[in-house]
């Protein structure tokens, strides 16, 4: 087993692409080290990307935000501008693990770990976030929802590294929110979760919407039909009930140690309703 700490993307990509055997990218390590401890993975090469220039920064650009792959979630919470623009994304990122884990974990790692229950992913999907992927073949930008392809599986090729997550500049009268259900108040993996991102017109009517659900299918679900329910509404009671019903119907959950199919369906709807209500208020709707 080798541990390396490259200083450039090129070096990192080269080392990964050229490695034989299993390799792992280390940013926060809060998933990787747990998997190593459990004996689920024994990488021959660990590439620590934290020393790569720019990867530990949040940059505000003309288009929005670029969040480096090595930025710990705690730092997201300390960025006033990001919190103001994308409160739902930040609250999702801040829900991952404890204070201890917050100081290490990253949204990129959360995405690449490809757990259907990842907290930040439904919020990122709802936000329409994109991932900048760098690999032997160059640089490409893809929607975040195309990264995880199933539990523990991603679409990334050998040698590819996500460099940053991009979030758009906010349109006026926009708001997002993320909620998850856990049995305790902290430290749990989401049993069900919902991210909602809305933009209103000047009359408080929903102009565009994205609704994403977590832990109810093999990957995070972007529920188009739910967005359609919201668009054109002012989030009246009937709309919210329909939203709940559509979300419950869209779920393809399983029974497992964390919850039952019935519970996940029912609560997915409840959380979508509640998250939509918060997002609507954040967008300035009344």
């Amino acid at each position, binding site marked *: 087993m080798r541990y390396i700490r490259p200083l450039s993307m090129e070096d990192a990509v080269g080392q990964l692409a050229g490695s034989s055997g299993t390799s792992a990218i280390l940013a926060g390590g809060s998933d990787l080290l747990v998997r190593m401890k*459990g*004996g689920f993975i024994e990488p021959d090469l660990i590439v620590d990307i934290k020393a790569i220039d720019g990867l530990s920064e949040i940059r505000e650009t003309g288009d929005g935000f670029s969040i480096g792959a090595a930025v710990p979630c705690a730092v997201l919470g300390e960025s006033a501008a990001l919190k103001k623009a994308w409160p739902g994304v930040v609250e999702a990122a801040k829900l991952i693990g404890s204070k201890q884990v917050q100081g290490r974990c990253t949204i990129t790692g959360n995405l690449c770990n490809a757990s259907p229950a990842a907290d930040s992913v439904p919020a990122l999907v709802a936000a329409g976030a994109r991932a900048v992927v760098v690999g032997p073949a160059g640089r490409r930008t893809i929607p975040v929802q195309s990264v995880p392809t199933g539990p523990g599986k991603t679409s990334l090729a050998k040698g590819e590294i996500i460099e940053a997550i991009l979030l758009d500049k906010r349109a006026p009268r926009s708001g997002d929110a993320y909620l998850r*259900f856990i*049995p*305790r*108040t*902290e*430290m*749990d*993996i989401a*049993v069900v979760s919902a991210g909602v991102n809305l933009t209103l017109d000047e009359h408080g009517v929903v102009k565009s919407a994205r609704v994403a659900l977590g832990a109810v299918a093999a990957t995070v679900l972007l529920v188009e039909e739910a967005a359609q329910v919201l668009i054109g509404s002012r989030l009246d009671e009937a709309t919210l009930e329909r939203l709940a019903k559509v979300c419950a119907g869209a779920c393809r959950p399983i029974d*497992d*140690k*964390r*919850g*039952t199919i*019935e*519970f996940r369906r*029912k*609560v997915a709807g*409840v959380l979508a309703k509640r998250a939509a209500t918060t997002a609507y208020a954040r967008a300035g709707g009344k």
Partner: protein
Amino acid sequence: MNFDPRFSGRKFTSVGTRPIRPDGIDKVTGRARYGADFNMAGQLVGRILRSPHAHARIVKIDTSKAEKLAGVKAVITAADLPDLTDGDAAMYDVLDNCMARTKALYDGHAVAAVAAVDARTARQALKLIEVEYELLPHVTDVDEAAKHTAPLINDTIFTEGLEEKPVKPSNVTKRSQFGHGDVHQGFGHADFIVERSFKTEQTHQGYIEPHACVANFSSDGTADLWVCTQGHFVYRQHCAQLLGMEASKLRVTSSEIGGGFGGKTHVWAEPVALALSRKAGRPVKLVMTRDEVFRASGPTSATSIDVKIGARKDGTITAAEATLRYSCGPYAGSWAEIGAMTAFACYKLDNVKTVGYEVLVNRPKTAAYRAPSAPMAAFAVESAVDELAKKIGMDPVDFRIRNAAQEGTRSSYGPVYGPIGIGPTLEAVKSHPHMKAPLGKNQGRGMACGFWFNFGGQTCTDLNIGMDGSVSLAVGTVDVGGSRASLSLVAAEELGIDYAQVKAIVADTSSLGYNDMTDGSRGTFSSSMATISAARNAIKILRERAAQMWDIAVDDVVWEKGHAIAKGEKHGNLGKLSLKEIAVESGKTGGPIAGHSELVADGAGVSFATHICDIEVDPETGATRVLRYTVVQDAGKAVHPTYVEGQYQGGAAQGIGWALNEEYIYGKDGRLQNPGFLDYRIPVCSDLPMIDTQILEIPNPNHPYGVRGVGETSIVPPLAAIANAVSNAAGVRMTHIPMSPPRILAAIEAVREWSK
């Protein structure tokens, strides 16, 4: 031996104060040494290979490849731990649990072990051990296992305790029965009857420190063992027996212990570590991972309980009956028996009958967990009691007060009670402001009672007085939560000196006589009794020495407030002699001054508690929040009230976790799904409110200071108190613990469906 343990009603100087514990500084600076904090030169790393199967015959184990791996110094299987138990069935079970002999009986059962130069080599070596299993059908559910169609876990087991020996083996190892009167007749006099079935899932003690030990077996046949345990003397006996050693050749030192709650009363890895060290000829350190702790130490029983209680319109219970099935893991136990004894212990009943069934399942061997077996029985009984009060239209506290046991009541398990605290805890709850506080929407209040026996047992202490007048107290009961502080207070009290003059330690097995474990809430009860006895013996010598110093008859010397005083007019001119003044001269008056005590601390007073809690339920998700929690419990006498409060709060918190979220979840494959703190959800700080406590002191007549055990009772009422609160908040009776959100939501939905 002329020790008089009776309560004397004295006024206390030290006892009842709240000084800082003697082991405190080490624990806040990281210097205290726990099981895994000890190392020896040349030490190897031990690791255990565990069965991934719930039930399988071990056809063959090939360790040859592992043995050839560079850095591996020993590989052992059951063959290296031959059966030396000589017909002792309980010890044979312990041996088989430490290392499976013919069958793996649960996911996590040890089948082989290695000692290697480092952790990485040890891990690799485990992968090189080839075990051929023949899979057998398994059963993990207590009700399924009790059926006669269930896969048999041990075909030599025929249910004990039946009128006639059964013709077929079964997974039910024993039936036990308690009670008196005629329940059939009693139910005939009832105006209201509640009859319900309850289930509780298996939980773990959840101590934060995994099992850890360092074993050093010497070629001369002696050995040392450093280990975190609740009872190093018991570990010594068990390890010595399993390894074929004389007990005195094995010196066991108990490390600081990072929680036990009953879970560190059994040996698991220690005999394995000793066997590895014996084979390798080097010290071996063996530390369980958290995964191993959950899969392969000793959780408590899962249960299934039927309860029937009847009462007259005036609120008098006329009959009470319960049938209790408790899982034991794959080895015989007596867990349902304890449940059957405790179930109705809070009440005065003319007609009561409880029947317990011990059930084998393919899960880890059940171990004690804080007032073992009582919380589940209390959950079932106190839920039914609440429901019955509601049916009659009585306040649940008043209903319990009316039926509460009192001095002279024949307990449901047999003996007649002496002075007890159930009535006073109920009266205290009735008048507690918590009971009158307003509740909001979706909020409910519940209360419940609990009982625990408390134990005494074999105890030995040494009290040595240094030449500077300071006192060292060596006790043999492991300090799990501040007992060195309370025992120092007791020594100071009895000798009449300052707390700061006493230093208490836990002695190793070669330095002190045998002590039973710190279990059954006995640590402070028993060791304080022995400490008082030792101090009285020391005072006898102090008086003799003072008499020598004064050259008067010892009968003329009394001991008061830390001083020898010559009594009688003829000695009027003699001043007092302090303990220190006598100690300074001890070299000239006969040598060291010490007091020893060896006794069986009998008469541990039974203990009762009543808890109140407020819960909010989210009717859309089944989520719960504990809003407020109050514990009222009888301590007999609180020696160090802060640590008594701590016991009350800790037990309540464990009970809250059990009630709401903690459970062992097994897959269809018989494997444990959640062997970690991520999905075995013990309460975190943000889950709980402050836990208010009220200490009642109804002296135990069988202890000089009136002390009763306080450690365990606090975990008995919470399951029921919370179930009653949730039921009141959600409008639906919860009968399955833990009341996790999916279970609560399903129950709420079922009522909604039904009322449509």
